[in-house]
């Protein structure tokens, strides 16, 4: 600053930085990771380790290359790539082969984190969701070539009827709560202790508690979380009443599967790929719930991930929806 070039205000800052925000997010997700390993065992730990390791190896290689070439590093700290790695680890199904986890992690950091940022100036798509969608697409092409519209794991499911839902829930109905020894119903299992589905959703209760603390502490876009979960609950309850059967089970299934509860807190709130405006965030959450619910009813594998990626594309549109009326404009038209 030259003698006569004055410096603009402000001269103080709240104190937090982007890296701190990322590290805190990582810390919160680590609590979920610990809970998931407790429920799912060593397999979950290896998945998380593979995802984190892959992301960090690629990040460190690119970072070193950028330093060597005298370029400004894209990520000065590994915090943001670590968050991406953790999200990949926690959003993988426990049944997925380890090499698929490594592939998703590699695609996430290379194509959708570094690549998107470099070629599109901004991340339009959630990196982990986008890379999982690419692999889902490849998997769907493979099943299509084999003459099946749906993945074999989901062929027998018919969630659009009360009986279909009931009979599909056997996979969640075989859990016993450790230490206490209580046998869990499918609905209880979905809420407390599930060994099927996403690693990050092993305990919806933990995700709810940790996610809520994180959302408050780190000021996530909470409107998306609230509108997703509330809309999903209303949709499930409404369909439960309409189709008959156990409405609690239907709500538990549609809201507490890992692909919904974990995604709502930690993926659908990813700042860059989601709307900024209040109405936009509510609409985004509502649309996410509707789309995910619809895809779940039709047994589409990775329905929530596909829904999120589709909606990410329209983020800028959501931002153009109703804006808050600024101070002094109440009662003024336009």
């Amino acid at each position, binding site marked *: 600053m030259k003698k006569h070039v004055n410096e603009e205000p402000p001269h103080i800052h709240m104190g937090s930085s982007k890296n701190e925000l990322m590290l805190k997010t990582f810390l919160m997700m680590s609590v979920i990771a610990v809970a998931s390993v407790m429920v799912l065992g060593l397999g979950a730990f290896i998945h998380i380790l593979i995802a984190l390791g892959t992301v960090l190896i690629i990040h460190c290689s690119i970072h070193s290359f950028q330093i060597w070439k005298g370029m400004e590093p894209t990520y000065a700290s590994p915090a943001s790539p670590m968050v991406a790695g953790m999200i990949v680890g926690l959003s993988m199904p426990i049944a997925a082969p380890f090499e698929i986890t490594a592939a998703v992690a590699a695609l996430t950091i290379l194509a959708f984190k570094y690549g998107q940022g470099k070629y599109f100036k901004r991340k339009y798509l959630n990196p982990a969701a986008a890379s999982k969608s690419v692999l889902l697409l490849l998997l769907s092409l493979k099943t299509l070539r084999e003459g099946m519209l749906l993945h074999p794991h989901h062929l027998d499911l018919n969630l659009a009827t009360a009986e279909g839902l009931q009979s599909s829930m056997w996979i969640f109905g075989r859990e016993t709560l450790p230490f206490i020894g209580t046998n869990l119903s499918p609905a209880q299992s979905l809420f407390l202790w599930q060994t099927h589905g996403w690693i990050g959703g092993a305990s919806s209760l933990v995700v709810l508690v940790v996610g809520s603390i994180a959302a408050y502490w780190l000021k996530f876009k909470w409107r998306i979380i609230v509108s997703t979960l509330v809309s999903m609950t209303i949709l499930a309850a409404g369909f439960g009443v309409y189709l008959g059967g156990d409405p609690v089970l239907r709500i538990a299934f549609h809201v507490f599967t890992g692909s919904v509860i974990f995604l709502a807190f930690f993926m659908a709130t990813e700042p860059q790929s989601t709307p900024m405006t209040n109405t936009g965030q509510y609409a985004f959450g509502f649309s996410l719930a509707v789309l995910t619910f619809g895809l779940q009813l039709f047994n589409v594998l990775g329905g929530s991930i596909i829904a999120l990626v589709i909606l990410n594309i329209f983020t800028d549109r959501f931002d153009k929806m109703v804006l808050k009326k600024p101070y*002094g404009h109440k009662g003024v038209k336009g």
Partner: protein
Amino acid sequence: MTNHKYFFEKGGFKMDISMKHGAEKKSFRIMKPPKKAIIFMQQHIGTCNEPLVKKGERVLTGQKVGDAKGTMTVPVHSSVTGIVEDITKIYHPVSNRMETAVIVKREGKEEMESLPPVDLNDRKKIIELVREAGVVGMGGAAFPTHIKLASEGVNTFIVNAKESDPNLVCDVRLMIEKPEEIVKGIKLMAKALDVKRTIFATRTQEGEIPELERMMKAGGIEVRRVTPSYSVGSEKLLVRELMGKEVPCGKFPPDIGVAVNNVSTAYAVYRAAYLGEPLISRGLSFYTQNTGIDNLWFRTGTTVKELMGGMDEKISRYDRYILGSLMMGWATKDIQTPLLKYTSGLTAFTKKYARPYEKQLKCIRCGYCDSVCPVDIYPSLIMKADRESDVKALKRLHVEDCILCNLCSFVCPSHIRLTEHLFDGKDKLGNAD
């Protein structure tokens, strides 16, 4: 006040105000008149003054040295007795332009030129006196006070004693030291405004300044405690907080029957009316890492160098000086910068004190800026529109409503100085209209 260590802004963001915690207990230190007073002709919002004196002319303390024709202007006065050493253009610390200043070298015994006494029962005479005394809004806005006092149709007068900036405490100190004078000043202003209702808006707790509260009560002035947050110190937001109504866009508080003035301004009105003294001195909160916060009473036109010297602070230790609020004031490196009528603070930072916005990262669209904005606009979207020079979007996003409080920059985890874009956006919109 005073037992708050943090303010909570909209969206739950925390602002550390521990810097001024307990500083209201420190009495004002009266600083010596400057050896050389630099009196800028422009120390208010409105038409710039023309010098009324010539080089070599002897001037008295309180003598008018600059004035202009028209309503939207107030005169400036010499803060020392001495000789006009020069009339020249020097760099203005706020407008960032070269502006005319009269430089008075202190010489001889101090002699005061007082304002002529006026009939304090005559509304018009009070307004005239306030103008002649050069009184401006001392909270930082520098809006000519006589214009506000002359507003018609005002039924409520709000005295803003919020002092919500994290480094300012001189108003509260003034309330402790000069309660009677403040009440007299407020009553005069209320008379000039011809209002029946006067509200004293403060962040002090009940019983904290008992004498002032007792006098307010006896004078029929309502004391209202306001939300402990930085943004509520803004005039328009204070109106919403106290009156439950908003000032429509493009209008001012008097348009809805409210006038807002700072508590220091009320004290300046008292000095003009009862002591015949124009606005040539005021209180200021001074801060360095060495001294902590101190409350000083200084003559306008004192340079940063002289004030630092008066506090026995070594200039060489410091890198930059912030005039006024840390949230809204400008920083300068120039130690010859004079302090103005509306300089309420001086903070000296060493080189070691980091510049929080030096290394700005890319926007991560976290939405913090949008959540904290007290006037409900979208700084992040405005930044994008400004970068793309999208005037249509700037209009749709109501950039003109920004009050430049800087809270958006304050909370940004990417350390982006968003206000730059809001300012630019306002300019672009103004040029397009």
